[in-house]
């Protein structure tokens, strides 16, 4: 088990570096960072000066290995735009994004699991059909569109939540809902099919024969088994929330990593983009690893075997 975790962690690092490599070349091919930093109207002289100052005149492979060397020493470089270490910048902004991601995951859990369970316990009833409707529409609606609709409904027409910002918990309600909604269809369907399968299992009949019914049966025997696969998918979804925060944070003007990512991409702030992509990749792969570990802990068949 320990060996497995170690191996997977190494693999995770390899993935993160590969992603950063690809991102590095794409960024530098798509934009001219020196031009972007200098501004549209800057003279060629200024642009050249900037190019030399930031080492942008070096060939791409040289620059990548310089970046890589820094990373291995724990140095992610300095932001072109903010003029301070990128690591500091990311650390400042991470709290907001983690809060948002966890809040979004809670929204997903609170909506998807009860809805999926109700649908499973009453298959083909109106509850089931309603749940299916929710899933289909949540899947069809893009994140940014849902975000705008929520702002219009609950911040403008019925002003119960602030339009933008990240000062109080009330600022997080709408963005967490928007970000959380995107995972509802997958988690709901997984809960529903899992619970339907479990309720038909022979061991549920055994539990009934021992004198279990209703809530006690559900708690002790059905939900635990049905939610096993759901928990690991939730961990994966949490990783995806970080990537998803790019759009949501921009819509709601939340100063987290997502917004930072968008700004630094537009501003060709390459060191910042590089570190963010690296961090997002690490988080994503780490969550996948976490999912596997949780599964192994909760399911005795995996733990031993």
């Amino acid at each position, binding site marked *: 088990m320990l060996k497995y975790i170690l191996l997977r962690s190494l693999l995770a690092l390899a993935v993160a570096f590969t992603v950063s490599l690809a991102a590095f070349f794409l960024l530098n091919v798509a934009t001219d960072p020196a031009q972007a930093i200098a501004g549209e109207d800057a003279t060629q002289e200024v642009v050249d000066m900037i190019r030399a100052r930031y080492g942008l005149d070096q060939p791409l492979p040289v620059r990548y290995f310089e970046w890589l060397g820094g990373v291995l020493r724990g140095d992610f470089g300095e932001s072109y735009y903010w003029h301070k270490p990128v690591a500091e910048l990311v650390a400042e902004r991470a709290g907001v994004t983690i809060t948002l991601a966890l809040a979004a995951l809670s929204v997903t859990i609170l909506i998807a699991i009860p809805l999926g369970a109700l649908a499973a316990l009453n298959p083909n009833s109106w509850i089931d059909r309603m749940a299916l409707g929710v899933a289909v529409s949540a899947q069809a609606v893009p994140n940014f569109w849902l975000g705008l609709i929520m702002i219009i409904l609950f911040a403008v027409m019925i002003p119960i939540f602030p339009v933008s910002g990240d000062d109080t918990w009330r600022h997080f309600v709408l963005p967490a809902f928007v970000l959380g909604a995107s995972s509802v269809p997958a988690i709901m369907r997984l809960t529903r099919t899992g619970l339907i399968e479990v309720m038909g299992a022979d061991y549920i*009949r*055994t539990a009934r*024969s021992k*004198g279990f*019914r209703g809530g006690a049966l559900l708690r*002790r*025997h059905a939900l*635990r*088994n049905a939610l096993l696969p759901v928990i690991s998918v939730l961990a994966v979804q949490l990783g995806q929330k970080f990537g998803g925060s790019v759009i949501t944070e921009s819509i709601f003007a939340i100063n987290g990593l997502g917004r930072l990512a968008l700004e630094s991409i537009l501003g060709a702030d390459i060191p910042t983009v590089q570190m963010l992509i690296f961090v997002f990749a690490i988080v994503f792969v780490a969550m996948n690893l976490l999912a596997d570990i949780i599964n192994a802990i*909760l399911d005795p068949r995996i733990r031993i075997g």
Partner: protein
Amino acid sequence: MPLLDVQSLVTEFPGAPGGPGNRAVNEVSFAVERGKVLGLVGESGSGKSVTGFSIMGLVDRPGRVTGGRILFDGQDLASLSGEEMRQLRGRRIAMVFQDPMMTLNPVLTIGTQMTEAITAHEKVSRAESRARARDALGQVGIPSPEERLSAYPHEFSGGMRQRVAIAIALLHNPDLIIADEPTTALDVTIQSQIISEFQRLAETHNTAVIWITHDLAIVSRLADDIAVMYSGRLVETGPVSDVLTDPRHPYTAGLIGSVPSQNTRGTRLRQIPGMTPSLGRLPSGCAFRTRCDRATEACATVPPPETHEGARGFRCIHPVHPELLTQ
């Protein structure tokens, strides 16, 4: 008054929309006295398990009991509330299910699955319920029961799981145990031990047992009465000694003819020529007609009514009578 009195029980699974349902259990009547063992035999798919589920009130949806009555200790089970039925299950009526590989929850320890069967009905301390679970495991011959309580089902062989299921059924010394093929995965010695355990239970606690099996040798050794099932109906019932030595129904005769010697243990039912007809398209009249060498045109008209002969009953219009055959 018998402990269990099943009267004209019908359990149906819905067929194609608009069509008639499949009667997995069709007009089945039998009774079991306290302290007696009834052997319920019949080919695969004849409805033995569904009969057991019907008594427990655990027929898989969308199947359901659509006719007849089940009287347990004088009470019509259909009149009980969900909670009253729950209190009966596990405590007064227990069932050992057929497939030992699937009937235990894979993510809970054996100890948890046993102690919760106790605490579902009694307020006892954790230590006491564990001690009782441990004793029950010892009772069915599981070595080092204390340690085994913390094991998971996948760490047990099929035979061990079957014994765990039996141990769970024995926890409350129930009035009635329905044991569905409870010893198929067990070796000879353990099987003997389990059978003795059931016999002891029937004697000391006056427990009534319905033993579902393919194994006529076990029935002749253990059971007081036998009920032979074919395509959802009981085709022959009566005291084991009478029915097995002198069957009336050609199907029963076929089953017995299939056992090479009464003393051979574990012999399975011979394949009587032909196949069990599927419930959806049973032949008219007697369901056994297509496989019966005594069948006449009269057998195709109506399902044979039950003929009584003392404590015995059978559904055949040309019953087997050895004394008639020899003439």
